[in-house]
């Protein structure tokens, strides 16, 4: 199944569950008003309009679900994911946020309905009915959320497996070392190393549309390798070797930054990822081996900047 189909399926599934829940919500609270007569009212005409209203709502929502799943869901403010992994995450995000919004609207609707419908009239000193519980209703609103979170969990696991998949024979492996406060990108077996700090933000150049394996380690404290447009981050930790794949979809320069607080100049620990066409990559490697522009220091040792360096001397915003 293509990824797009998967998302459609997921949204349809969510919305069907939500529809089932909504129909129940419209029907059941009415039941609350007549709990003592429920047994007798069940088969009488009184309950019929409620049930048909519930069925109508169900039908409407299933329809809306199908319709929505067919259309493109909005991005809800997130980056679209410039890697294939990030794009998977983005699609999961769209589905989950849609579900969250629908649930939110229903619950907000119930809250505001209660607040506006049942406000006490100024002169009203009467007592409302003192109903205490409704076990059937309570069981229903335990089971429906349970099913919903299990469905959402299922799609989370599917996406997670895609995002965390590491190819066994990558074309390119880059060892990324985070340190206070900078990054070292070591192209394994290519003889190229890029180092940068708070004064010279380093740039990792990658070929586009190729699975690149990243080996992420830390030289000192916990850091976070975070490229917002990849919809992805991973800790770089002392004592832990983290592996993940990046498969950049589009040519471009992507800003990255340390995400886990790592000391004084945490906010200056900036880098970038530049994705270039695969055909240009060998040329770049060759050039990087011979030339050493300011942000390319092949083979230089990892020397953290002394903490008294004035930050933000660099005007370069990658």
């Amino acid at each position, binding site marked *: 199944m293509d990824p797009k189909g998967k998302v459609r399926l997921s949204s349809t599934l969510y919305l069907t569950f939500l529809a089932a829940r909504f129909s129940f919500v419209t029907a059941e609270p009415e039941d609350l008003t007549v709990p003592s007569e429920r047994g007798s009212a069940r088969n009488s005409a009184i309950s019929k309009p409620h049930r048909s209203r519930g069925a109508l709502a169900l039908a409407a929502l299933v329809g809306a679900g199908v319709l929505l799943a067919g259309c493109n869901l909005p991005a809800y403010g997130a980056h679209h994911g410039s890697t294939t992994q990030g794009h998977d995450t983005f699609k999961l995000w769209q589905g989950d946020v849609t579900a969250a919004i629908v649930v939110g609207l229903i619950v907000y609707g119930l809250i505001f309905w209660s607040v506006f419908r049942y406000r006490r009239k100024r002169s009203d000193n009467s007592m409302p009915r003192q109903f205490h519980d409704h076990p059937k209703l309570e069981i229903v609103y335990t089971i429906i959320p349970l099913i919903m979170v299990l469905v959402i969990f299922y799609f989370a696991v599917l996406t997670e497996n895609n995002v965390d998949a590491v190819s066994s024979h990558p074309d390119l492996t880059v060892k990324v070392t985070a340190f206070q406060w900078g990054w070292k990108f070591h192209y394994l077996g290519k003889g190229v190393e890029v180092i940068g700090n708070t004064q010279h933000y380093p740039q990792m150049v990658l070929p586009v549309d190729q699975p690149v394996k990243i080996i992420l380690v830390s030289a000192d*404290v916990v850091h976070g390798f975070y490229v917002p447009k990849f919809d992805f981050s991973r800790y770089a930790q002392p004592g832990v070797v983290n592996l993940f794949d990046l498969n950049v979809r589009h040519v471009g320069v992507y800003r990255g930054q340390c995400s886990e607080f790592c000391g004084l100049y945490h906010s200056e620990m900036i880098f970038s990822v530049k994705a270039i066409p695969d055909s240009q990559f060998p040329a770049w490697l060759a050039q990087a081996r011979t030339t050493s522009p300011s942000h390319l220091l092949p083979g230089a040792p990892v020397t953290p900047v002394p903490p008294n360096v004035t930050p933000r001397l660099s005007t370069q915003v990658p």
Partner: protein
Amino acid sequence: MTIQQERVEVLLPEEHPHHAEPTGLLKWMTSTDHKVIGKNYLYTSIAMFLLAGLMALVMRSQLVEPDNTLVSFQQYNELFTMHGSLMLYLFAGPFAFGGLANFIIPLQVGAPDMAFPRLNALSYWLYLSGCIIMLGGFFTTGGAADFGWVSYAPLSEATNSPGAGPDMWILAILLTGFSAIFTAVNLITTIFYLRAPGMTMFRMPIFTWGMLVTGILILLAFPVLSAAMVMLFADRHFGTHIFTVQGGGVPVLWQNLFWFFGHPEVYILALPYFGVVTEILPVFSKKPVFGYKGMVFATIAIAGLSTSVWAHHMFTTGVVLLPFFSLMSYLIAVPTGIKFFNWIGTMWRGHLSFKTPMLFAIGFLIVFLTGGLSGILLASPPIDFAVHDTYFVVAHFHQVLVGTAVFAGFGGFYYWYPKMTGRMMREPLGKAHFWTLMVGFWLTYVPMYALGLIGMPRREATYPAGLGWTLWNQISTVGAFLMGASFIFWLVNIWISWRNPIPAGSDPWEYGQSLEWFTTSPPPHHNYNKLPPIRSERPTWDYYHPEAPKVERNGKQVIPALVGASSGSPDASNGPGAAGNGRSGGGSNPPEGHEDGGPS
């Protein structure tokens, strides 16, 4: 069976020798009365809250424009560390279990005091020492702790964070941690052993249930935190290498230990406030709690699940079993959802009056729902990869914690202030407080969601221009100042109630349900000179509102509001005061085993 006990002659407070006790400052310093200690806790924790709020305003001012230099990097790092530490360790928890619970729980279960009054006093003094020591970090040469309230090792090790400030921070956490443990022991014992006759477990108010479960969670979580702090201190000073790779240690162990405390801690900060809301909503809806037992089981389920979700803070470490912790995190949505529907069911077809506590309780529902929904998004590991350590997470947990500790917490403050002081707070000022806070809240945190999604990491001392972050940050800062300003209304309210008191009767909200509304405001020395018969979870209501319609359970059963079928009925004509109980002398009647045969 208990009718005999409930009708022991009324003992009047004048007959007690206890009242020859110190007044003024000496009273505050020497008292073992849970009400005095509770107020000490409340005022101290609110002072911490206001301080931490001011720190937040400084941070928001720093972020109002790119490359701002209002504070240095070092100062900013100290500020966010201390803001988080004060809010989480010294405000949100102690405000609930040290302040509100300390004052209210003995009243709600009908006890004369906490089970261990001196231990209670010790807890407070440990807590106050912790507060002073933590703040003292600012006056050391190296400055206060600057590694975040989570103090991830190895950043918090001596090589990366030398100086006395971090040591004082560790000591302060140990002291307040022990204070929390002692308070938890006290609360649990009080709830299990000092309940009044007739107060069965399933007649306890939900706030009491919440505090019982919170107490158990504290006993699970805080010892782990204390142990981790001792290990960190040993690493820093005694040459151990528990969290350093160089010596063969495991840095990730810190994260596991910390979050094994840290996630139950989130529910230690939430369950009491869920309880507060569950107290407020029925009183201002003139109805019983909807789904009482569901509420209790949901509380227990949340507590149980909360001990197995800690690694959802560590999804991006790459060393935890993602599906397990993801599933456990998702499952917490189920009992929380039950609570939400029960809160709505409590309001459903009620007669709602929007006094200040009710506004704050509804405000809690509204803001906590958004925080909860963004939490469900974060329980998904891939989505967490995308927004972990960004402002999205900052917005999420602030919505959750401001929802609980501030909206529900201050709702509880408005609700119980008349009981604590015998004075009313002013409604218009309370409402001004609420609306300013509400508007400020959304202005502050919605931009943070947007900032997180476009990639602004948290704990950034400053940021460059040209990334589209500036406008969102500016809106957020305006919101933060509105939130700060709202507390001016609150302070003025307290000031007015102090200078120009309007006396509160025993039940200022007219439809009080739980036991504390039966006694005077403020309560006498040992809380009760008389107790009403306890036949349901709302004895005060049963006593004062015999005219109310019968309670409907399970949609069918109809039960007399006041008494069960098998137990004798104190005549309504006896009036308040006739059904007395001799608990005011401070003797410990054994409450266990008093089953009155009434329906429960």
